[in-house]
């Protein structure tokens, strides 16, 4: 299911999106309160191992997001933050926005999984604006999540489409938060943010440290 990339003279094995979501899902423990950011992170819930009860929070006012409803049974007023139709799981609760963000900013949610444009070795995250001024900036709830949730997991491609690195010494895009990222899951590797910088937790099967380093601006620790 993996694909092979040739970049900077390195030959790399890359996880598909679904494999990456499944890898992140392994690290979501039973009983956790989890917020899944819009886009790719929403797919993580589908891969959480059987037997774990995970409570999903969505910032638009639901704790206990359930699976997608069958076609034709959608409730137009029951959506998640990605604006997808969802259901309410047993034990769910509805609330308004200031309460929802109190949960996020107040440290009540255990884990958030977010996408990113760039992550710095200091844990700085950039995921809301580029330097392209043509596009109006759109921040949403990302800044609130990163200051409040103790464990921020980032899930992204290791490099940009043009091959430029996303794991940097310092972010060049506007920041979402400073020193907030705990762990980064990419198609090529899993990395922890440590006081010294990125530490490799695991490499996607087939990749050498040297090859992953070749497509990473920040120095990788082992």
């Amino acid at each position, binding site marked *: 299911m993996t694909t092979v990339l040739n970049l900077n003279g390195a030959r790399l094995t890359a996880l598909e999106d679904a494999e990456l979501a499944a890898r992140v899902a392994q690290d979501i423990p039973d009983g956790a309160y989890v917020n899944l950011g819009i886009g790719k992170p929403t797919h993580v819930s589908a891969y959480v191992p059987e037997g774990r009860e995970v409570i999903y929070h969505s910032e638009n006012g*639901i704790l206990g997001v359930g699976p997608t409803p069958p076609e034709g049974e959608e409730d137009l007023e029951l959506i998640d933050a990605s604006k997808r139709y969802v259901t309410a799981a047993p034990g769910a609760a509805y609330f308004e*926005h200031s309460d929802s*963000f109190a949960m996020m900013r107040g440290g009540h949610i255990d884990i958030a999984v977010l996408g990113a444009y760039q992550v710095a070795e200091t844990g700085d995250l950039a995921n809301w604006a580029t330097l392209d001024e*043509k596009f*109006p900036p759109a*921040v949403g709830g990302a800044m*609130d999540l990163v200051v409040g949730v103790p464990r921020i997991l980032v899930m992204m491609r290791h490099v940009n489409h043009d091959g430029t690195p996303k794991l940097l010494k310092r972010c060049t895009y506007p*920041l979402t938060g*400073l020193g907030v990222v705990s762990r980064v899951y990419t198609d090529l590797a899993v990395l922890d943010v440590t006081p010294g910088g990125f530490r490799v937790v695991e490499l996607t099967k087939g990749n050498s440290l040297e090859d992953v380093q070749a497509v990473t601006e920040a120095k990788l620790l082992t």
Partner: protein
Amino acid sequence: MDKTVTDLESAVAPIPDGASVMIGGFGSSGIPFGLIDALLAQGATGLTVISNNAGAGETGIAKLLKAGRVAKVICSYPRSPGSIWFEKRYEAGEVALEVVPQGTLAERIRAAGAGLGGFLTPTGYGTLLAEGKETRIIDGRGYVLEAPLPADFALLRADRGDRWGNLSFHATARNFNPVMAMASKHAVAEVRQLSDTPLDPERVVTPGIFVQSVVEYGVRP
């Protein structure tokens, strides 16, 4: 006490040119589509719209933007899939934009409704969105001082309402509606169903004290 009005037109009639108008909703849920259409027909222009999004496709706030009625948008997420009218007006420099982190937006609105002079939040500290704002370090953590955000009017969508202005909501349609009711001088609620009897006091989400008028509008596009 009877806060019900018979039609959408009367409900939005008091909104003048240049008013600040909060509009409830998130994505496609909890949006007062009927009141927005009535505001479009009413003709008020030069509006400051405070809402989480800036409309999508040809519905809701996008209609107001398309018709050139909006001078400024204060929101957290203007650029959603299909937000073409916001993007057109923004690129042409025809609409001003203030982007506020979503939780800070909700909390600033609540602060206005709750009579607070501002609050310190860690959200946005050290980012572009804190530039020019007062900050301070408390116990080693950075905070930004954020100001309350009130409005002249709020347009809300609720599930049920009664003549006292009490509102209840359905599922995730609460979102910004309750705090916007609190923070506006004049809150107008469009409800799916107007109840002849008082709502159950345990089920009321927005107490009537925050709502100035209620109008039934059963349609949800």
